[in-house]
């Protein structure tokens, strides 16, 4: 059974339909990457999963229908989204950002906070600084750590590389890959940097103006000539 399954999902903003019937799956323990140009509907797909926008069609998580579940409840089920542009709580300290990430949990969270400080030592150094004062890369780390504080089974990551230096991006992708390998965290990743994304992906969906136009394993997609030309610039 797929961890996440979307079947013929339509979604958009008001009268504007952006997704015209998307179907995709994320299996437990997979990193799935959605590639596509600007305006293809990548972010809208993420928002349709996390419940931030209304959607028609079927979205199931661990077999349960979540297509009309609210965003707040979906977090409780085990899906955490790192929004595009990071969306950290700028006025709150780094530590409070992490604590608010654990909002849905009832158990003790201090051990987990320390754990993410170990993974992202730079956050530990800045734990009592306001998140708004962090650099872009640090904010992205914070956004990911905050999402992980809810102990999700599926992490939605919306263009983590946006506006970051290549070296920082590399570092972030290493962390995501390690989380996936060591703990079986499933990840649905939206990325414009196709070369980088294909290195970590197990499977790939290609989105074009709100439709899935191709899908396959990372190897299949990388070796497809027409896709290489359109998305990999080679």
């Amino acid at each position, binding site marked *: 059974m797929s961890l996440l399954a979307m079947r013929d999902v339509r979604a958009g903003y008001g009268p504007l339909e952006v997704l015209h019937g998307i179907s995709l799956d994320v299996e437990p323990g997979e990193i799935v990457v959605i590639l596509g140009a600007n305006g293809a509907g990548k972010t809208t797909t993420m928002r349709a999963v996390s419940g931030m926008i209304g959607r028609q069609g079927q979205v199931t998580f661990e077999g349960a229908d979540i297509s009309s579940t609210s965003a707040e409840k979906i977090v409780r089920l085990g899906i955490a989204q790192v929004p595009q542009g990071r969306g950290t709580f700028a006025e709150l300290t780094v530590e409070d950002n992490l604590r608010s990430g654990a909002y849905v949990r009832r158990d003790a969270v201090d051990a987990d906070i320390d754990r993410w400080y170990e993974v992202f030592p730079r956050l530990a150094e800045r734990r009592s600084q306001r998140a708004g004062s962090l650099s*872009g890369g640090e904010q992205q780390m914070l956004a990911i750590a905050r999402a992980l504080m809810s102990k999700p089974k599926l992490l939605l990551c919306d263009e983590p590389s946006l506006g970051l230096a290549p070296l920082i991006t590399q570092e972030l992708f290493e962390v995501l890959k390690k989380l996936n390998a060591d703990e079986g965290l499933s990840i649905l990743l939206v990325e414009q940097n196709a070369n980088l994304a294909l290195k970590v992906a197990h499977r790939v969906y290609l989105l074009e103006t709100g439709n899935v136009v191709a899908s396959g394993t990372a190897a299949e997609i990388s070796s497809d000539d027409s896709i290489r030309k359109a998305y990999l610039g080679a």
Partner: protein
Amino acid sequence: MDRFFQYVFDGLSFGAIYALLALGLVVVFRGTGHLNFAQGEMAMFCTFLTWQYNSWGAPLVVAVLLGMLTGFALGAGTEVTLIRNVAKKSEAGVFVVSIALFLGLNSLAAMIWGNLPPEQMPSLFPDQPADFARIFGAVWRYEYMGILLVALVLMGLLFLLFSKTKFGLAMRSVASNPESARLVGIPSGVVLASSWGIAGAMGALAGTMFGATTGELTSGLMFSVFIYAAASATLGGFDSPGGAVIAGLSIGVGEQLAAGYAPGWIGQELRLGVALMTIFVVLLFKPSGLFGSVKVQRV
């Protein structure tokens, strides 16, 4: 010097009332980004209700607590039924709604209680002419001391709520970034309704304590208090609870000093002018207020 201490002391007590109402304005503004023009009228309405509970036989303390509960319900109910739905369609609409609430509550209070014989709001504290202590030569009325004390304790509790509890963290998260707050599973609707509710409850207490100092209750009870509170929130910064408290107390003292030391020039009539001038000057020269944050975004 006696006069000075007298003005400062009286100013602190009234300032505490302004601060309570200003804190309500700030809590609402931080949560939803709206200035609730009906804040003062909600407080006035709840003050009448407190009086009503008391005259129906509830002991005063119970009546005050019931009044605060009603204030919470009135605030939260307003957010859930009116503000939230109007805000979806138009931000300017919220402004109009809060003005309409201002007028509506004012008229409603006048309609319900206006034809009764004058209502005297009893005080929570000893308020006979002889109930005072003399400190530094100034008359410190027990009632004013009580107001200051209760307001400070309540504000202290609120700051604990904001800074130490999970609910406070949720409130700060929603104020900082509503979208991200939903993404971490915070039910922002509950948080926003509670913010309005807390503001309503504080207003009810402020109104009740203020009403007891003025003698008769009228539907105009909170007009001037609201202006002072708005000036306090502007001076302190609309997103700074601590700023609202400090500014509220300062404006209370400033108003007493101005009226007391310049009786011929400012006197009783121009006190409100001091508050309005504060609003103008702050908005002109430091729109974020003394303690408000200027939004800076790094990318």
